[in-house]
Structure formats: structure tokens, C-alpha cells
């Protein structure tokens, strides 16, 4: 075999795969510059307001060390399962009153709104001002449960061999009780199982039974 040509094919395959990663690359957006000086109140007052303002938009605000007046919180994009937003509110006591600063960071495009929008709302929540609704954070697609007639997600047991069972997943994968994997597709009531070959089965109107040549399965639901 022409080794050079083979290596070219290998390189092309690597290149094609790497191109699909570029869409996932994101960037950090940082907002700073909002600060507020109160000529009255204590560090404790500032801290209480900082915690409340942060927790209006991000869960679980914490102080970096007790009494420091430095508060931060992170928000998670449930769809990606990773943190995509964060904010810090720092209080500092002055001879009269206190100084407070607001800094926010988000990861774009995973986060649905920019850092400045988050910081402006937190600051306005702290000292008063117009609140602009932020775009909703994406939520995870719930896994279907029950005997749906639109998918096969769940556990199935062979009517002919009770030891043989399948776990069908949302992404179209299936795994049997011995870890052998395959796939499923449903079109109307017609189901194609790819498992030691392709098998065409019919889904019953109640979504509980799959039947066809070689396989008769009942769903646990």
C-alpha cells in the first residue's frame, strides 16, 4: 500500500474531526466599573445587601472569609452542567459609610446574557435602579418517563427470555444486560433495533410492547 496516501487520509480524518470542535470554543466576558459609595451604613450593612443582591441572580453567595465583606457567587448552565456566570461584590469600610464594587464574568455563548447585564442588575438590586429581565438560563431536557409512544426510553425485558433485558436511552443508544450495545429508531409505530443486525418491530398502541421477528419485548413502566 502507498503509505504516504494512507497517512494523508489519516491526517484528513483528524482535520475533519478537529474542525467540529471550533464551534464549542467560547470566551470570557468580564464586566467591571460599577461602584457605589454610601456615606452611611457599616460593613455589615453592605455585606447583607451584597449577599441578597447576589442571590437574587446567582445561588449560594459566600463570603471569601468571615467578616471580609468580599462576596461571590456562581451560576450554572444546567444544559452544559458547568458554571457559566459569576459575580463578585466587594464591600470596604470607609471612615463614613462604605465602598462597594461589582464585577461580573460570564462564559459566552454558554451564558444567555452578557456580564454587564448581570452586573447592572446586581448593582441596581443593591442600591436601587431599573432591573432588566435577564434571558432565561437553558434547562436540561427532561428524560421521558412512562410508556411513551414517541420513544423507547426505559427498560425492556424479553418475553421469550426474562434474563435478556435492554436499557434504551434518549440518544437512541441501547444496552443489553450483558453490556452489548446497539441502537433504536422509531418512526410512527415502526421500530428499528440495531442489535446483532437490524430488526423491524412494531410498538403497541399503549407503548408497552415491541413485537416482531426474533424479538418480543415488554417495557417496564
Amino acid at each position: 500500500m502507498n503509505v504516504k496516501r494512507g497517512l494523508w487520509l489519516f491526517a484528513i480524518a483528524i482535520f475533519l474531526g478537529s474542525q467540529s470542535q471550533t464551534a464549542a470554543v467560547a470566551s470570557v466576558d468580564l464586566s467591571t466599573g460599577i461602584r457605589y459609595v454610601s456615606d452611611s451604613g457599616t460593613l455589615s450593612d453592605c455585606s447583607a445587601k451584597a449577599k441578597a443582591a447576589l442571590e437574587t441572580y446567582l445561588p449560594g453567595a459566600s463570603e471569601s472569609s468571615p467578616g471580609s465583606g468580599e462576596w461571590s457567587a456562581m451560576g450554572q448552565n444546567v444544559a452544559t452542567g458547568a458554571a457559566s456566570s459569576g459575580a463578585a461584590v466587594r464591600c470596604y469600610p470607609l471612615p463614613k459609610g462604605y465602598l462597594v464594587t461589582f464585577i461580573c464574568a460570564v462564559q459566552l455563548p454558554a451564558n444567555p446574557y452578557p456580564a454587564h447585564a448581570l452586573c447592572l442588575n446586581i448593582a441596581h438590586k443593591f442600591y436601587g435602579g431599573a432591573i432588566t429581565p435577564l434571558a432565561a438560563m437553558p434547562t436540561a431536557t427532561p428524560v421521558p418517563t412512562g410508556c411513551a409512544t414517541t420513544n423507547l426510553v426505559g427498560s425492556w425485558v424479553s418475553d421469550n427470555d426474562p434474563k435478556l433485558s435492554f436499557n434504551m436511552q434518549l440518544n437512541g443508544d441501547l444496552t443489553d444486560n450483558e453490556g452489548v450495545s446497539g441502537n433504536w429508531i422509531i418512526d410512527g409505530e415502526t421500530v428499528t433495533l440495531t442489535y446483532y443486525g437490524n430488526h423491524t418491530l412494531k410498538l403497541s398502541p399503549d407503548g408497552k410492547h415491541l413485537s416482531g421477528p426474533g424479538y418480543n419485548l415488554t417495557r417496564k413502566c
Partner: protein
Amino acid sequence: MTRISRCRVALLAVGLIVAFGSLSARAPAALDMNVGVGKVVANQPVSACNNSAKAALNSVLQDAVELGGDTGEWLAFGAPDSANGSTTAAAVHCYPLGGSYLVTFTCAAQVPPSPDSAAALCTKITAAFDSGAR
């Protein structure tokens, strides 16, 4: 299909598996944020803080800018990656307190691809600031 063709197809398949397989193994990028040091430097003007803040940010990141005019609020981002996005950023705030100043450091990083966590980034910037500040 000839033997050579089969070999080529096999190599193409292996290449695709290596390339796409590495995608699923990669951890999702997460935002990391760090509330760094906040300290008062006595008997120094805020201009000294501004000078050190700009130098420190530029030594670790790039293109440090002061927001507005003479605000003492400095911001810089890391060099953009291949997708033209910065995955690191930091802010240094200088605030005058009579004849002294307050300085705070706040950092953010997207990990991966940033090799530095936000805390590591803030540590570097704080060290650079201290080496240039009195």
C-alpha cells in the same frame, strides 16, 4: 474492494475515531472566578496603584485599559485563542483613601482551555503588582 482500498478506509476510520472520540472525552468548559487579594497600601498615592495595576495586567494579560477617565478601574483580557475569544480576564481596582490606596484583584478564566485557574491568574497578577508597587 481491493486490499489497498480496505487499508485506506480503515485508516480513515481510525483517524475519525481518534478525532471525534477525543471530543466526547473532553470536559465541558466551565467559568472559574476568583475574588483575589484586597489590601490597603499606606502612604502611597493612587497614581502609584494605577501604574502598578497597568504594568501587572500587561505582564500577565494584554492591552490593559482604565475604564473611563482616571477611575482607577483597570481591565485586561488574555490573548484571543484560535476562535478569537479570550479565555482569561482580570480587573484591578485602585481606590484612593486619603494618602493611601485600596487595591483589589478579581480574575476569571474559562477552564479548559485556559491552563491557569482564576486563582492562579490572580496570584500571578498580584505578584506582578507587588513587584512594581512599593
